């Protein structure tokens, strides 16, 4: 169980804000590594504008002796690379937040503290050192050992020219000195309890978890068209493609990408594409084709705020309905929505297994928040081996769509065995040839839809977090899991539980009764209309007493959820 590190000296929340291109990510990487090296847990997450240079972005780093894995609005210290940022950060600065920046012209004694970033950067050799200087300042305020930071810098820049490494070491030193001075003078003080046991854990983000999951699922073909926030998965797999025998192709458009994935599965590969809402729109006809031809397909749908181009670098859970209903006609599909990095890894791997076993499209719903957030994970379990592809060696009589009870006809691969493998977009007979036999049509529709029965039986259960008998339930899906968990844990009430869905279609039936019996059902969704809530309500015959919805492009913070719960929950026994 994770609890809130805030306000009780349990942890530290740092915010780095600056323009795109100022290297905020370098500070994020250096500090994460440094604190983790000491045994602290680190969460970091980003919110940024759709531009390559300029604008105003920020990164949150939470450091704690205990596991920490959720977005928060609480800021202990904020460092501004660029003063414009301050207006955008307003809502995340508390009275007790220290704000450091260059030429803030802070009144004496205030928590706004001028630091000569630009001047120090000149001293270090140029404005591009400003990020390492900032890392030094923060490390100095924390009173970290210089050698620790130096080690981290050496690792981070390893492979670069010696001059680069030396320059950064010097820059860090300059920052560190200032940081120490601020700390010793008492101007800035940060309380951080002794480190925890975060030794040797993995530290990664959602993009990496999904990508590793794809490899663990046996993915060996990726075709995609770049689109934020889904592109990272493409570049990850491209980087490691040759090592793992993965064919990676940038398609001319999403239509091509999706159809290539179908061709790849048909030809015996395990294919995947990665996209966001607008790209998915263009893929829906191919998803429908996957349904009709019973060709497996894995689509990573990384959500961002729509409609249309919307806010391309931000986050939302607005494409549930699209994923569920996009693509014409009626056929089974599976929608998975990982709640954390472990699930992102595991469910991505499972996507390939499910698509293969059930010959259906599997859509993996993530979002910018999940993909760009880093935190610590004890382990990502290795598959013993990738099970062989669920295909058969065909005989001369082979019929691709042979009717049977489960609806799952054995799948062949062209060239393996004596049979011929047909796949048809029209309604078809057992061999895949066009038919206008309308009774056969009905049997084929039923066959395809029958797969839903088995799929529902195998659905990944929803997780009930909290007391079995809790009468108040916060229901969420996908990337809000850890936020909800931390928010509810912080309430310290025994009558509240979280119910999190990592599979959103077909629904896992497990928690149905408990949820129906709950006295107060609260929906938590990162969209404006409560899409999943409406769907769940219809299927399980329940309604919502409260809905916490957010759609400004940012993820919920732990504090927001807690505030929402405070309003929504009936007054009751406190622990």
């Amino acid at each position, binding site marked *: 169980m994770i609890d809130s590190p805030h306000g009780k000296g349990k942890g530290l929340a740092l915010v780095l804000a600056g323009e795109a291109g100022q290297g905020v990510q370098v500070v994020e990487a250096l500090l994460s590594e440094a604190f983790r090296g000491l045994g602290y847990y680190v969460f970091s997450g980003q919110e940024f504008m759709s531009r390559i240079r300029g604008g105003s972005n920020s990164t949150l780093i939470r450091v704690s002796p205990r596991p920490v894995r959720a977005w928060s609005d609480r800021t202990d210290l904020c460092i501004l690379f660029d003063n414009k940022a301050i207006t955008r950060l307003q809502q995340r600065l508390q009275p007790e937040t220290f704000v450091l920046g260059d030429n803030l012209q802070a009144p004496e004694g205030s928590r706004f503290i001028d630091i000569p970033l630009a001047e120090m950067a000149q001293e270090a050799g140029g404005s591009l050192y400003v990020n390492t200087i900032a890392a030094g300042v923060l490390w100095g305020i924390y009173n970290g050992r210089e050698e620790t930071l130096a080690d981290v810098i050496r690792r981070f820049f390893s492979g670069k020219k010696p001059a680069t490494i030396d320059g950064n070491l010097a820059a860090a030193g300059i920052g560190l000195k200032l940081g120490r001075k601020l700390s010793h003078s008492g101007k800035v003080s940060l309380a951080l309890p002794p480190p925890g046991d975060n030794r040797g854990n993995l530290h990664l983000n959602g993009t990496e978890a999904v990508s*590793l999951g794809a490899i663990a699922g046996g993915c060996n073909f990726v075709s995609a068209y770049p689109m934020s926030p889904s592109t990272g998965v493409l570049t990850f797999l491209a980087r490691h493609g040759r090592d793992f025998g993965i064919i990676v192709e940038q*398609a001319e458009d999403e239509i091509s990408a999706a159809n290539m994935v179908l061709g790849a599965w048909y030809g015996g590969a395990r294919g995947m594409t990665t996209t966001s809402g607008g790209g998915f729109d263009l893929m829906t006809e191919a998803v429908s084709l996957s349904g009709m031809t019973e060709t497996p397909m894995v689509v990573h749908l990384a959500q961002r705020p729509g409609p249309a181009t919307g806010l391309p670098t931000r986050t939302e859970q607005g494409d549930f309905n699209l994923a569920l209903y996009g693509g014409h006609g009626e056929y089974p599909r599976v929608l998975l929505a990982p709640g954390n990095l472990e699930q992102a890894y595991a469910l991505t791997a499972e996507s390939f297994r499910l698509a293969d076993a059930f010959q259906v499209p599997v859509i993996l719903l993530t979002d910018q928040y999940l993909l760009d957030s880093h935190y610590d994970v004890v382990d990502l379990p290795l598959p013993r081996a990738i099970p062989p592809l669920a295909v058969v060696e065909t005989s001369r009589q082979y019929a691709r769509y042979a009717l049977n009870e489960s609806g799952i006809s054995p799948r062949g691969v062209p060239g393996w065995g004596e049979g*011929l493998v047909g796949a048809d977009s029209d309604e078809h007979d057992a061999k895949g040839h066009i038919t206008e036999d309308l009774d056969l049509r009905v049997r084929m529709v039923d066959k395809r839809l029958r797969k839903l029965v088995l799929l529902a039986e195998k659905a990944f259960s929803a997780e009930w977090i909290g007391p079995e008998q809790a009468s108040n339930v916060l229901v969420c899906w996908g990337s809000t899991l850890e936020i909800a968990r931390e928010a509810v844990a912080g309430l310290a009430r025994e009558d509240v539980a979280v119910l999190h869905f990592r599979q959103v279609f077909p629904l896992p039936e497990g928690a149905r009764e408990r949820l129906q019996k709950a006295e107060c059902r609260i929906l938590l969704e990162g969209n404006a209309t409560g899409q999943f809530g409406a769907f769940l309500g219809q299927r399980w015959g329940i309604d919502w007493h409260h809905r916490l919805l957010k759609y400004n492009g940012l993820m919920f913070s732990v504090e927001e959820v807690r505030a929402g719960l405070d309003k929504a929950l009936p007054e009751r026994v406190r622990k």
Partner: protein
Amino acid sequence: MSGNSFDMDLEDIAWCPGCGNFAILQALKQALADAGLAPREVVLVSGIGQAAKLPHYLAANFFNGLHGRALPVATAIRAVHPGLTVIAESGDGDMYGEGGNHFLHAVRRNPNITNIVHNNMVYGLTKGQASPTSGRGFETPVQVHGVVNNPLNPLTLALALNASFVARAFAGDIPETAAIIRKAIQHKGYALVDIFQPCVTFNRVNTFRWFKEKTYYLDDGHDVKNRDLALRRAAEEDRLPLGVFYAAESRSAFAESTGVFEGDAPPLFRRPFDVARLQALIESYRGKPFADP
């Protein structure tokens, strides 16, 4: 043709009597047999249209997908399973209209597939609208005052995109069409065969007779390695040459460039999985603690 291993037992073919598609079907079977291929080694990939129904009339593996989308499917099949001979086949509307973007980029990508286009200069299955190759002035239920767009010349287009093999055939001549298709199949890399195909129902302009009179074969001395020449010949409009316009030297094709098939690597579905490598990659995300914090 009798006894061709690609023959199928068929009750009924959904084409109009007299349609040029029958000839293309026959020529394709011939070409596959002449290339020494067995049905199980061949995959036909098609879109939607009258032409795109062909895979249902020929004994081979097939993927009859969406209108306009044969090329990406075919490209991927060939990429993951280089042992297969993959033929992407559809109508002019499908390949140059709905599928135009894939056509552009398939040529650039140069996968080792054959792209056969039944060019009847009309949308057959949807009952006679103009296709991208319909001539100016062609009247249809939609183009009621005749087509005004420039017709698309698939050959010059493919050549402008640096296609590695470009040919044109006429369904009225089955042996030559079969020979051209065979060459395309044997070419390493992307090969376009645009086939003039009379549609006896919806195209009363570009008839068997019209094609017969308008076309002639490039002579034997035509230099298929000369791209500029190919471009010039392909641009001819008074009379329309048939044959192989251009055939580049072998260039490394898409599947090879993926780096996944070195030596005699098996097709993807028969590969063992390297757990240790994944383990190493995952391990690289572990923190390296400091000796003495």
